[in-house]
């Protein structure tokens, strides 16, 4: 592509990228220079061309030349300019790709609030249109477009790896039934990973599997749309960003999961949780959660127990920019680390103020800038070595790679670990359910749970307290967890709050009948799949001529999974419950 054509495409993209936020960030900078000391490139090199204001001006000046009144009359006065020569284009390329990790540290330190990362990403989008893109980034984007993941892992390789890891996982936890499920419909969690975990860091994936096994989670990995990373974010390519998100979200919809959990990947989480729905123009009907949040919820809910003495080495935590500064996830990893390591120490500054690992913004895919990247990494090296820690924990694979690079470069006697790896190491296995005394009832065997497997939760809705007590006692004796509601309205609230695995439902109740409750439940998109067993008298004395079974099953809603008449036969009910939940 000739320079003139490149410049034309670049300007066409600039016009498309201008939104209100861009225009403000491009107009409000006063060149106060306060941003310089917040940028690791500048702090490490003291090179004036590495200050954020200088770098952002390279994009800002192009905007001003076309959109600022004074700049259009007297461009020299405001530093506005237009691109003409290959050298100027090369200069912009060097600034946008090679001298900013889009970590946003300067943004939160800017008195004016200039979003430099927004400007740099827009600059990258302009360069992408002009085909001025580093080969490494181009290759990764191509793999994501064509193969669906950033490391070009074929579907067969992926499936074989998961199969192998599934066997490893079963060995790991000592339960042949344990697995890494693939495409399990109706699972609670769809777990999506960074391809690095599949290709180079399977221990991270195994650690996650172990934690979810211990928590008794119902989870699955998808066979498609499993890559949580998104180079659309780094390359300024909204189309790629949307495509990656769309693949993942559509798979989650297809599997009917309750939520998507993103493994420990900073930009992967940011892209999936925050940016991709905008790029893909999709309104999601399920939440996207970081695995840090999932793990800390397990801990809070008592679903996992940790023994910090299993990790005796001093550990510090590095906040990935995309989690701490762009997604507000700072406390969950600390809550976990304080419970799973014996000696946790903060690095300073931390949280949103933390220094970038130096490998963000796709920098690890641009070897031509390695020298500069590692030179700038001295700021991070000094920061982590000051902690005296021997392990730097972080929740981002990109940060792991960058930290390992700088640990080698500056000869620091440290290792890296993900938070999940440390949590998995500290897991205390719960008592297996079969060790507890649960006896057979009427010849029906009680539920046998795998180690760590969570009991199924049954919601009993019945207005008669005696019936509720009878049913909940029966179910609990049989190895289930129970909750109860005295009417349909309370029942609906509990369904929404606790999302039970099964509901037993009475029909005739005050305030609202079980029939109405059932129809409402089946109309709720998120609740419609919860199995229901009707437990009622066939001919209620008040309605001797009404055939309730016919009445409820002949409506245009799916039939309930079971229908048990009062007086209740224990064996019949327990068998029905078991079949609905396990067969």
């Amino acid at each position: 592509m000739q320079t003139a054509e490149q410049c034309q495409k670049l300007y066409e993209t600039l016009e498309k990228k201008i939104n209100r936020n861009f225009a403000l960030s491009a107009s409000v900078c006063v060149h106060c220079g306060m941003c310089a000391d917040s940028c690791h490139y500048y702090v490490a090199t003291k090179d004036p061309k590495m200050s954020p204001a200088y770098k952002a001006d390279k994009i800002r000046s192009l905007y001003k030349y076309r959109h600022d009144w004074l700049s259009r009359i007297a461009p020299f006065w405001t530093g506005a300019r237009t691109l003409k020569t290959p050298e100027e284009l090369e200069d912009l390329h060097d600034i946008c790709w090679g001298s900013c990790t889009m970590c946003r540290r300067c943004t939160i330190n800017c008195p004016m609030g200039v979003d430099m990362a927004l400007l740099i990403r827009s600059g990258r989008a302009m360069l992408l249109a002009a085909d001025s893109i580093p080969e490494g980034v181009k290759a990764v984007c191509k793999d994501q477009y064509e193969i669906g993941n950033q490391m070009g892992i074929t579907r067969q390789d992926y499936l074989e790896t998961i199969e192998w890891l599934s066997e490893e996982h079963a060995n790991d936890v000592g339960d042949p039934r344990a697995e890494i499920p693939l495409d399990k419909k109706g699972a609670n969690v769809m777990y999506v990973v960074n391809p690095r975990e599949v290709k180079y860091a399977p221990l991270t994936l195994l650690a996650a599997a172990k934690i979810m096994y211990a928590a008794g989670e119902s989870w699955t990995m998808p066979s498609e749309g499993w890559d949580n990373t998104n180079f659309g974010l780094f390359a300024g390519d909204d189309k790629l960003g949307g495509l990656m998100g769309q693949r993942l979200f559509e798979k989650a919809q297809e599997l009917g999961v309750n939520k998507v959990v993103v493994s420990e990947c900073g930009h992967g989480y940011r892209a999936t949780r925050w940016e991709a729905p905008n790029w893909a123009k999709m309104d999601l009907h399920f939440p996207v959660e970081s695995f840090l949040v999932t793990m800390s919820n397990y801990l809070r809910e008592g679903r996992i127990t940790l023994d910090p003495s299993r990790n005796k080495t001093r550990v510090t935590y590095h906040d990935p920019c995309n989690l701490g500064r762009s997604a507000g996830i700072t406390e969950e990893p600390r809550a976990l680390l304080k419970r799973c390591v014996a000696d946790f120490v903060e690095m300073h500054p931390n949280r949103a103020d933390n220094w970038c690992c130096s490998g963000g913004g796709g920098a690890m895919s641009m070897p031509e800038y390695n020298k500069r990247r590692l030179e700038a990494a001295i700021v991070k090296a000094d920061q982590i070595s000051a902690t005296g820690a021997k392990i730097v924990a972080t929740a981002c694979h990109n940060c792991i790679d960058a930290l390992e690079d700088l640990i080698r470069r500056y000869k620091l006697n440290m290792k890296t670990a993900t938070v999940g790896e440390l949590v998995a190491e500290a897991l205390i296995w719960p008592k297996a359910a079969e060790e507890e005394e649960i006896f057979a009832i009427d010849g029906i065997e009680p539920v046998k749970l795998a180690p760590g497997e969570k009991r199924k939760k049954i919601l009993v809705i019945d207005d008669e307290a005696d019936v509720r007590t009878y049913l909940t006692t029966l179910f609990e004796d049989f190895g289930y967890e129970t909750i109860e509601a005295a009417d349909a309205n309370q029942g609906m609230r509990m369904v929404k709050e606790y999302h039970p695995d099964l509901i037993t439902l009475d029909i005739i109740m005050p305030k609202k009948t079980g029939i109405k409750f059932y129809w409402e439940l089946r109309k709720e998109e998120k609740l419609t799949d919860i199995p229901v067993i009707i437990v009622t008298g066939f001919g209620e004395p008040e309605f001797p001529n009404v055939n309730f079974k016919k009445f409820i099953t002949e409506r245009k809603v799916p039939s309930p999974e079971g229908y048990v008449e009062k007086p209740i036969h224990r064996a019949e009910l327990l068998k029905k419950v078991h079949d609905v939940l396990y067969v």
Partner: protein
Amino acid sequence: MSYESLVEFLKDEAQIAALSFMAVIYALKIWGIMKKNPIQDRTPNHGNPKEGVRYSFTVIAMPWEMQVYRDHPMKYIEFTIFHLAIAAAIASTFIIPYWPDVMLKSWIMLPSLLFIAAGFLCGLLRLIARLTSPAMRAFSVPDDYFSIILLNVYLISAMIAIPNSAATATDPMIWSIVLFFGLTAFFLIYVPFSKISHYLLWPFNRYYLGKHFGKRGVYPKNSAGLRAADL
């Protein structure tokens, strides 16, 4: 036009005309920005956008929340005095013509003069920094130098004009009033086009930034990890 009517014209009609001009340009400028689409965020909140906006606006009064000001507290003091001194000088352009007696009270005049003088010193330090720091020089443009020099000259003119605010046309110091109000009128016309207009755009930018970071739970920033040494 007599000297006296020139002074009166500069104090009144010229200011109103320049202010009106500024208001029109500002309105057009804001309209130009607001007609562009804001970034749409389809995802549910993690934090509170309103809290984020509140924090975004008030963080400027919390230097401990920004590392650059934690590391360079003198820069923050300089920044504060300089901006407040300019605000005081601007305020005096309204006080002198419309409430002339106020400025003549020594307990108002002297502190005002001292404050504006301190602001001038801070402005001078800012100019020196821009001229001597290689990083600052690298991105400074003529508008940056001109604006800071202009503001310093403006602060000097305010310092001279305020004690002579009651000067009549025959008073030898009347030139200070002419200079001060002449500069003010020039300012009002120049500022909307220059970088000094940042004070108009600042609230808009901080609003959108606060909303963005508030939604994501980044603002208000959690400073739980700050050590005493950081503060």
